[in-house]
């Protein structure tokens, strides 16, 4: 028993978080920044945070994750980080030549109160930023929100810094995805492309954190959204934001700053949510849904109808990030599963809690924010045992102790490969997900069947 000290009785806690179901803002901001072409994330604070964030992303993606740091020591912590930041800008442009430096703050620089806007202005005045290059920042204090908030803040900073309204509308639809895997970013682009929609999507980490091996190291891989396109998003005919918690702020800003009409939808995970996305795309772009997309949809529905008996009525519990969770719960509902518990450490807000409760229906425990951690989830599971668990790698301890199969769908995943190559969004992603679920449940059935009930054809 790896988590042998977790008692079944649920005790109220108000101060101690045990086995968190979230992490801190900068890691999300760093991930988002990697979705801009030729952008180097920079962490303003002491170097430990940056080392941790790079390591976490490196382990999750098994890819080089570049990022620099202001490397505060005690002096900078007392006197402020301006000189460290200015020196960083110098060294970064001479050594690594990025087009953009995307700065995220850490709790340290936030507590000191470093004013990055002023520091960057100072760098501009002092001619420290080469022509055509940009230094942008997002405020990402770790004592607020979670890694999802950090992602949202960096995405908002992209709109703030680059999106521009020139008055001449272009033909693009802007897509703003929430914190999802590069494979999911690809899938969303695939749907838009199949439908013949001209789109701008950012951030776009596909090709950056799942880049191919070609015998060279590319500091800035081919992927990522070029800043010209982010700029052009200010003139786009409309925008669709996917995943409310991760994109709301950016979507709103794009709307108010550039007057781009923006629809905010859920992440297209499962049939219902993907239908909504495709339909919105169809209407806003004025296109018809092509046969290829209908085929993808039809295949997913086909498999679901064929094998629904293996998933129908199965009990599931889920942990992860709010937007993905909303999609996954929707997917499970599409498949006729029963939702027992939904837990996210991200303080997703009362509205999210309410929508999630509406979606899951009576009898489901939904908890987000403070003390919504894996210790609590484990306690819940001991009281009401699901057939299946969705969550990140840290859930494997619960999964092993309780012998509940785990489907890895959240951040971080340190122990399995596939999440950055195989999507869970769109119809094709839905099919991947369904196959995963069926595999694991049918394997259970095989494993647990008495000899006389062991079947060849299933």
């Amino acid at each position, binding site marked *: 028993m790896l988590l*042998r000290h977790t008692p079944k009785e649920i005790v109220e806690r*108000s101060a101690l978080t045990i086995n*968190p179901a979230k992490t801190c803002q900068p890691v999300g901001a760093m991930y988002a920044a990697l979705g801009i072409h030729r952008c180097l994330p920079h962490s303003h604070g002491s170097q*430990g945070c940056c080392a941790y964030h790079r390591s976490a992303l490196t382990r999750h993606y098994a890819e080089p994750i570049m990022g620099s740091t202001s490397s505060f*020591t005690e002096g900078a912590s007392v006197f402020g980080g301006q000189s460290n930041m200015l020196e960083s800008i110098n060294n970064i442009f001479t050594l690594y030549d990025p087009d953009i430096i995307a700065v995220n703050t850490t*709790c340290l620089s936030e507590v000191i109160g470093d004013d990055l806007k002023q520091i960057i202005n100072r760098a501009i005045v002092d001619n420290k930023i080469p022509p055509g290059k940009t230094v942008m920042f997002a405020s990402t204090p770790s004592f607020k929100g979670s890694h999802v908030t950090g992602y949202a803040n960096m995405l908002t900073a992209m709109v703030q810094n680059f999106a521009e309204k020139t008055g001449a509308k272009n033909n693009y639809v802007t897509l703003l995805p929430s914190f999802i895997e590069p494979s999911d970013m690809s899938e969303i682009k695939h749907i838009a492309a199949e439908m013949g929609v001209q789109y701008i999507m950012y951030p776009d980490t596909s090709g950056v954190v799942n880049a191919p091996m070609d*015998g060279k190291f590319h500091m800035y891989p081919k992927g990522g959204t070029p800043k010209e396109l982010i700029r052009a998003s200010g003139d786009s005919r409309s925008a669709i934001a996917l995943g409310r918690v991760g994109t709301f702020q950016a979507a709103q800003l794009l709307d108010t700053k550039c007057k781009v009409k923006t629809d905010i939808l859920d992440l297209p995970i499962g049939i219902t949510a993907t239908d909504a996305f495709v339909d919105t795309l169809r209407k806003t772009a004025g296109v018809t849904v092509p046969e290829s997309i209908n085929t993808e949809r039809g295949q997913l529905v086909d498999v679901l109808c064929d094998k629904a008996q293996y998933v129908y009525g199965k009990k599931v519990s889920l942990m992860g990030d709010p937007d993905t969770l909303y999609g996954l719960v929707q997917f499970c509902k599409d498949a006729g599963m029963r939702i027992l518990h939904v837990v996210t450490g991200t303080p997703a807000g009362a509205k999210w809690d309410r929508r999630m409760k509406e979606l899951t229906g009576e009898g489901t425990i939904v908890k987000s924010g403070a003390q919504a951690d894996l210790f609590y989830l484990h306690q819940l599971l001991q009281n009401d045992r699901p057939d299946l668990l969705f969550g990140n790698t840290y859930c494997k301890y619960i999964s092993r102790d309780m012998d509940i199969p785990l489907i890895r769908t959240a951040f971080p995943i340190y122990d399995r490969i596939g999440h950055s190559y195989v999507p869970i969004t769109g119809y094709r992603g839905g099919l991947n997900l369904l196959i995963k679920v069926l595999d694991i449940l049918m394997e259970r059935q095989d494993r647990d069947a008495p000899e006389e009930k062991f079947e060849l054809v299933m």
Partner: protein
Amino acid sequence: MPVVHETPTAEEFKTEVLEKYSSKVAKKRSKQIIINKVENKEDVPEILANSRTIPGIITMRGCAYAGCKGVVLGPTRDILQITHGPIGCGFYSWLTRRNQTKPVTDQDENYITYAMSTDLQEDEIIFGGEKKLRAAIDEAVAIFHPKAIGIFATCPVGLIGDDVHAVARAMEEKYPDINIFGFSCEGYKGVSQSAGHHVANNKVFTDVVGINDTFTKPGKFKLNILGEYNIGGDAFEIERIVADCGLTLHSTFSGNSTYEEFSSAQNVDLNVVMCHRSINYLAEMMDKKYGIPWFKVNFVGAEATSKSLRKIAQFYQDDELIKKTEAVIEREMAEVEKVRLDVKSRCEGKTAVLYVGGSRAHHYQELLGEIGLNILSAGYEFAHRDDYEGRKVLGSIVIDADSRNIEELTIEADPKRYKPRISAEERAKREKDGFEFADYHGMMSEMPGETLIIDDCNHYELEELLDRFHPDLVCAGVKEKYVVQKRGIPMKQLHSYDYMGPFAGYKGAVNFYREIDRLLNCNAFKFTKAPWDTDPELSATYGFNS
């Protein structure tokens, strides 16, 4: 067809690398990139180490918190550890260092799989977080009833002035049978993880070691191993070997260890030190306070393991022990040799570079040497000058602003417990005969002249090095791993072992030989270039042409 590269001299490399830096940065780095020169057996050039990371440089380093909570305390299974700060720090130090631990029974305490944090929110950052920390300890006690609690301070906590020590004292009063202690290991302390090691050593020494006089383990020859963290099961293999020799391993600091072993660690006759950087302080302080001598060992590498075992046996001067030790060495080496020679036949002459840790870049050279690899360059992430140049330079290391903020404890002999394990005369006599106590010669004296020693090697320098020297193998950490591998060069992580191990001791050596054999000779890396990448396109012929 082997590719022939023009390799620069170390001197040329250094000059060219420095050119790209601003003069200020170049000046500093020129003192950290050193061309080794060993004179009179161990006189080596001076290196600048334990110096600030340059802002904006993509660095391999981490912070004091990582060194304290992650490295030194993390591997102890039954000290409940609470990170005081926002959620991130606690989250990232959760299980990623692969410290294995094996409680004796299923009932024994084991908190290794738990990550606890006060998860500070904005309000607490503004109004102070001590109240929440106290409440967190209350909750931890109510749920887990641990015998000891460690509290770890993070950057923001230090800044807002929360006093983790005061909270620890107050809570200890409330729960007198629980040992509660705090660590001022704020990330910005010092210049790297190293500061955190020191903070951890100090606190474990003042608050844990020496408070339990009754616990002991059976056996005649008792020792502690310091600076071994049981990554991938290393400590298990070392435990196996020393037990076979007839030694009693009282406690390992801190791999596969318990609070009880720590608190009674003064009840031994010898301390041996693996990772010099992370724990030499503790060895030194235990020598002064309790009279326990220490010396440096290395269980990485089969030869190094034998050498270390022989030195331990020699220390106790017991014929039976010496005989048993020799028997173990003979038995184990027979197995090792078979694999070693086979692997060596395929790896001999290949080259490697190592940038890792504050001891590993040295230790692993022994293992690589056993299968015939040549080391082109090596360096540490967070070492001090003594790890490079040897402890003889300790007196000449200048205390600067970044090291001054870590407390240097003044240690005196414990009036009750001080007991020199060997008398001063005996010690002097043995030293005269060449037996070394309390010494470490550092990495440089064991590396040939003209090799490049790079302290705090950064991303740019690593890339330059790969471009110019084309090593066959790189050893570093996870952040460097894929940078190297994208070029088609195999890279071995020496912090996490790429989720393999053990690599220490004899079985570990065999594992490591096989692993390096796989890395250097497996097919996968040969696919990095597609056939059409090397074939000129125009030479393609069509069926109808022939």
